[in-house]
């Protein structure tokens, strides 16, 4: 059946939406910028040494594809074996099933509700070498002695920590982030269909311009 599919729209990957101070902002994603995002995701994954055959659990609903689909397609290109779980509390049993039955190398996008449920059986997550957690899940995971890294969707951009866990990277060819009065502000610098200029991300934090030992370029952000 796959051979009969008509093929993608020539220019548009899709249309996303994020919440900003002035309300809901819709943004179109073109294929060229999407391809660059996949390339960047590939570079970040390389710092984590995720390789073919690794089992990766992904917790990201379909509507988060503007942020997480580049990561997922980079994983597919790496030929990892991926499993999907929902980020809602009622689906924690699915995460537990994968963690119990299979050797999971990485769990990407773990949410605070699911983390809380899984932490009732601490050994489940303790066996996972790589945890990329949503910002509100980081503290509870750390409180249980785990070492999650940050995965954050900020406006139209995705920020990911590398194994240094010393601030999240955004592709500097696409985005510039500044701290203005303690708030993080985003501006598009790449050739993207949607241009954000001085977008208040609604989160506090700071930026770090020092080179990251992981080798990824650009400044990092630390969420407060």
């Amino acid at each position, binding site marked *: *059946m*796959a*051979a*009969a*599919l*008509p*093929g*993608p*729209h020539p220019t*548009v*990957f*899709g*249309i*996303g*939406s994020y919440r900003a101070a002035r309300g*809901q902002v*819709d943004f179109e994603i073109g*294929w060229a910028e*999407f*391809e660059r995002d*996949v*390339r960047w995701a*590939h*570079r970040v994954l*390389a710092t984590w040494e995720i390789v*073919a*055959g690794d*089992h990766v659990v*992904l917790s*990201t*609903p*379909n*509507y*988060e*594809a*503007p942020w997480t*689909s580049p990561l*997922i*397609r*980079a994983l*597919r*290109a*790496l030929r990892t*074996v*991926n*499993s*999907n*779980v*929902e980020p809602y509390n009622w*689906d924690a*049993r*699915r995460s537990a*099933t*994968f963690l119990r*039955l*299979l050797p999971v190398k990485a769990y990407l996008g773990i949410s605070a509700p699911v983390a809380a449920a899984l932490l009732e059986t601490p050994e489940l997550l303790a066996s996972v070498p790589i945890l990329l957690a949503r910002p509100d899940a980081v503290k509870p995971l750390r409180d249980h002695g785990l070492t999650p890294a940050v995965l954050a969707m900020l406006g139209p951009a995705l920020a990911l920590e590398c194994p240094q866990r010393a601030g999240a990277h955004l592709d500097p060819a696409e985005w510039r982030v500044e701290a203005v009065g303690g708030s993080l502000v985003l501006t598009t610098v790449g050739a993207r269909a949607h241009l954000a200029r001085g977008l208040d991300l609604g989160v506090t934090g700071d930026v770090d311009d020092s080179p990251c030992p992981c080798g990824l370029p650009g400044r990092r952000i630390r969420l407060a």
Partner: protein
Amino acid sequence: MADQLPQVLEPPRATHAGQQRYFQPDVETMPRAELHALQQRRVLELVPYVYEHSTFYRERWSAAGVEPSDIRDLDDFHRLVPTFTKRDIQEFRDRTGDPYGGLLCVPPAELTSIMSTSGTTADPELIPEIWDTAPPLPLCSARDLWELGLRPGDRILICPGTFRGFYDTFFQDMGLIPIFIDTWIGQGQQVLDAMRRFRPAYLQLLQPNVLELERLEHATDIREALSSLKGASFAGQPLGRALAAKVRDEWGVELFTYTSAGDTGTAWECREHDGYHLWEDLVLAECLEPERDVATDPGVVGELVATDLDNLAAPLVRYRSGDLVRLDRGTCGCGRTHARQWVVGRRGDETIVAGRVVVMGELWAAIESLPETQDGMFQIVRQSSVVETLRVRVGYEPTRTEDLDELRTRLSAVVTERVGVTPELELVTVDALLDRSSSVAKFPRVVKS
């Protein structure tokens, strides 16, 4: 590693005439004889493949004295290959420690993904997959969404759930433009806002979504907001007949309900809304008596037994799905030749009342025969499958009901006549019955209280 850049831009692979009703005309309207030959060819490839690569099948078939060389045609397959249930997989896993229950036919590292079943009643079961273009479950709905009316260039609201695979690549390969908005339960106003902003041709609805929209009716013109839809898919807990009529007649939305194809994929309604199409080039569907490996007579309710025809990772071969269905292999009004199923219940839902077997489908038929209870919304209330009294909670439609005592008397009579047991009836409104359900995915037909 950084040099291995993924390919995300693909050229169109085929062209489709925009007005053509069928997505794959040659397959969808294939004469039954050709379909039978195709199934036989695939089964004869599948049998030695799984025997060689799956420890579960090899062990099970050997115990039954069956070898691949015994299977020379579909008749041999139906006659000799043993059926199995989900419990058999679980027992194999518990005994051997194999997380895949012995079904996996390839090394784990060769898999593309490992998805899982819904897990409504127990821990989810693993579903290993190998694919190139789009995940198997989304992909198998391509013909159905084409039938719904979707065409390249249409905008669609993305469905939220991902546990059977991501949908973005599939929708994109259909030439559609996904709108990535949260449409999960609790987002009714956001859905309406998105409908107005983007004018999409499609979205997925669950029963709680419909109830949310109904609650917003006083403040917004739902019909206008949904007017760009070519159709909406619908699955899970059923709508009452009255609510379904509201969606169709007052809101102007054509719902396309879909259901499971015995855990091998999905089966959707076409525009005729006369049963769910099983794509028989992908699944070999049998309707067997629940307790014996014997086919039911045509049109008689039995258990759906499914064989994967397109799955090399961990194919199900004669899998007893637990779904009690009626099958029709006649050509549908839409012109498609693939079988249709009507799901009437789940195996295990049978109740033995004072020594007499009460089958869900029979009870269902009795209840929906009266206008007040024609929605067929009911639950058997029992502590075990063996009871002395048949207790049934039945949903009635208040607008069609004048006298509850009179309804109780009439309903008791038709149930007694149909199933041979006089029930103890609890009458509640359909809405009250739906509100009792804890799952958005399935409506429980058997409850303990």
